[in-house]
C-alpha cells in the first residue's frame, strides 16, 4: 500500500471484482468440492453419493498401484530436478564464459522453453520408436533391447529423458541471468584470490547462485509434479495400464477414465496438502538459510 494512495471507496472493489469472482468460482469452489467429495463414494451411474468418511483415503494408502505411483513420482521428480539443474548449470557457466557467439548459444539453448509438453512427448515417441527409433537403435548397439510402453523401466527412462530436455531451458535462463548479475568487481577479486577456475566457482560463484538454485529447486519440483502431464500422457499413448505414472496423472486416470470420483478427489486433497507443505518449507528455508544480497 502506497502512503499517498487514493481513498475512493467503490473503485477498488470494482477493480478487484473480476479477479475475486473468477477465483471464487473457478478456484475455491472446485477446491472445496474436491475436499467434500473425498469423503463420499459416488455412484458410477450418477445416482447419488454415500458418506464414507476417511475410507477413500484408507483405500489409497493400501492400494499398491497408488503407492507405486507415489514411489515413481519421488524418483521421477528427484531425477528430473537433479539432472536438469546440473546440466543447465554447466551450460550456463560455459555460456557466461564465452565471448564469441554468446547470444547465439543463449537463443539455441532456450527456445525449447516454448515447445508444448505433448509435442516433447511425441518427440520421445519418435526417438524411442520400436522399429526405427534412433535412440532405441543406439541403445541396441550396447545390447539394450529398449521397449517403450512395454518395459516399465524403459518407459520411465524415456519419460525422464524428455522431461529433462524440456526443462533445461528454464534452468539455463535463470542460471545465466544469475551469473550475469554477479558484479564484475566480485569476479575480479575472486580471480586474484583464487587461481583455479573450479575452486573459484565453488567458493564464490556458487554461494552467490544459491538463491537462484533454491528458487529453481522449487520450480523444478512443481514442474516435475504438474507440468509433465502432457509428456506422460503422450508417452504412454493413453494406455496407462502397466506404465509408470506420476500422482497427478493418476488423479486424471482414476477420476476421468476410471470414474472413481471419491478416490480421485482424495488423491487431489493429498496433492494439495503436499503442495502446501512444499510452500511452507520454501518460505521457512528462504528465511533461514539463504540470504539475498
Amino acid at each position, binding site marked *: *500500500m*502506497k502512503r*499517498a*494512495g*487514493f481513498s*475512493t471507496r467503490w*473503485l*477498488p472493489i470494482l*477493480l478487484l471484482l*473480476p*479477479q*475475486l469472482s*473468477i*477465483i471464487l468460482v*473457478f*478456484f475455491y*469452489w*472446485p477446491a472445496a*468440492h474436491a475436499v467434500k467429495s473425498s469423503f463420499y463414494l459416488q455412484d458410477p451411474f450418477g445416482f447419488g453419493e454415500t458418506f464414507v468418511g476417511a475410507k477413500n483415503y484408507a483405500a489409497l494408502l493400501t492400494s499398491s498401484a497408488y503407492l507405486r505411483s507415489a514411489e515413481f513420482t519421488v524418483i521421477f521428480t528427484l531425477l528430473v530436478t537433479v539432472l536438469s539443474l546440473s*546440466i543447465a548449470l*554447466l551450460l550456463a557457466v560455459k555460456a557466461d*564464459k564465452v565471448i564469441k*557467439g554468446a547470444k547465439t*548459444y543463449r*537463443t*539455441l*539453448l*532456450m*527456445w525449447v522453453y*516454448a515447445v*508444448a*509438453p505433448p*509435442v516433447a512427448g*511425441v*518427440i520421445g*515417441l*519418435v*526417438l524411442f520408436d520400436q522399429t526405427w*527409433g*534412433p535412440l532405441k537403435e543406439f541403445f541396441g548397439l550396447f545390447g539394450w533391447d529398449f521397449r517403450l510402453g512395454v518395459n516399465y523401466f524403459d518407459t520411465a527412462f524415456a519419460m525422464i529423458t524428455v522431461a529433462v*530436455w524440456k526443462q*533445461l*531451458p528454464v534452468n539455463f*535462463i*535463470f542460471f545465466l541471468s544469475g551469473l550475469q548479475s554477479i558484479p564484475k568487481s566480485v569476479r575480479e577479486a575472486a580471480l586474484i584470490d583464487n587461481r583455479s577456475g573450479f575452486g573459484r566457482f565453488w567458493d564464490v560463484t556458487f554461494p552467490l547462485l544459491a538463491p537462484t538454485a533454491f528458487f529453481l529447486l522449487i*520450480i523444478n519440483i512443481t514442474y516435475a509434479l*504438474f507440468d509433465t502431464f*502432457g509428456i506422460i*500422457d*503422450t508417452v504412454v*499413448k493413453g494406455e496407462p495400464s502397466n506404465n509408470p505414472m506420476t500422482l497427478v496423472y493418476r*488423479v*486424471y486416470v482414476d*477420476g*476421468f477414465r476410471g470414474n472413481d470420483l471419491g478416490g480421485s*478427489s482424495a488423491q*487431489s486433497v493429498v*496433492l*494439495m496438502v503436499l*503442495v502446501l507443505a512444499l510452500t511452507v518449507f520454501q518460505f521457512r528455508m528462504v528465511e533461514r538459510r539463504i540470504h539475498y544480497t
Partner: protein
Amino acid sequence: MKLFKFSTLVDHVILILGSLVMILPVLMLLQMASTTDLETMRNGPGLVFGDQIPINFEKAMFEASGFSGENTGLRMLYNSMILGFGFAVGKIVIGMMAAYAIVYFRLRFATLAFWIIFTTLLLPLEVRILPSYEIVQKLGMLNTYQGLIIPLIASATATFFFRQFFRSVPEELIEAARIDGAGPVKFFIDILVPLSRTMIAAMFIIMFVYGWNQYLWPTMITTDEGMFTLVRGIKQITQTLEGTNLPEYGKSNILQIIAILPPVLIVIFFQSWFVKGLTESDK
C-alpha cells in the same frame, strides 16, 4: 596473451553439444514431414530432406482428420490463437486491475483480499482438475471459448507480478498526479499503464506461451472437434497413427511443427523481454 586457449575450445564444444541436443529432435520431426509416409514407416527418420513438405502442409492445414470434418489444422490454429491471446490479455487486464486496487487504495479488507488471491498460487489447476470440470459443466461452459480460457485465469501470477512492479514505482508520481488534479482512473490509464509497457510486453509473451501450450484443460473440456486447439489435437493426431494401414506421419509431424512455431518464434524474437519477465516476475 595466447590467441588460442584449450579451455575455450572445451567451452564451445560443450555449448555446441548442448545446442545440438536441443535442435536435433525437432529437425528430426521436420525431416520426417518432408518425406513420404511410406518411406517414414519403413525407415523412420533419415538424414536427407525430401520434397513432400508442401503436400503434407496442404493436407495438415486443410484436410480434416476427425469424424466431424471440422478439425483441420487451420481451425486448430485459429482456436490456439484465441486461447493464447484470450488468456494472455484476460490475465493481464484482470491482474493489473487487482494489483492497482491492492497497491494504491486504502482498503479495509486489503489483507483478506491479498490472501484470497495469494492462495491461488499454491494449487495448480491439475490438482483440482475433476471438480473444475464438473463446475464448468454445471455452468454449461463445455466446448466454449469462455470455458477454455476463464478457469485458466483463476490463478494470480500476473497480479503478483504487477503488484511487485507497482510497488517499485516512486511515490512522488502519484503525489504529483494528485496535485495536478488527476483522479484514480486517469492516473491508472495515463500514467501507470504507459509506465508498465515493457512489463506488460514481457508478461504477454510468457502468458501467451503458457496459454497456447495448455494441454490437460483443453483435453478435458473440449469434445467438439471444431473446438480443438493444436496442442490438444496432438492427442487425436498421434492416436490416429495407431491402427491405420499407412500412418500419416507427414501430416502429423507438420502439425506438431505448426503447434510449436508461434510460441517458439515469439520467444526467440522477444527474448530479452521474455527473459526479463521470467526472471523478474518469479522471484
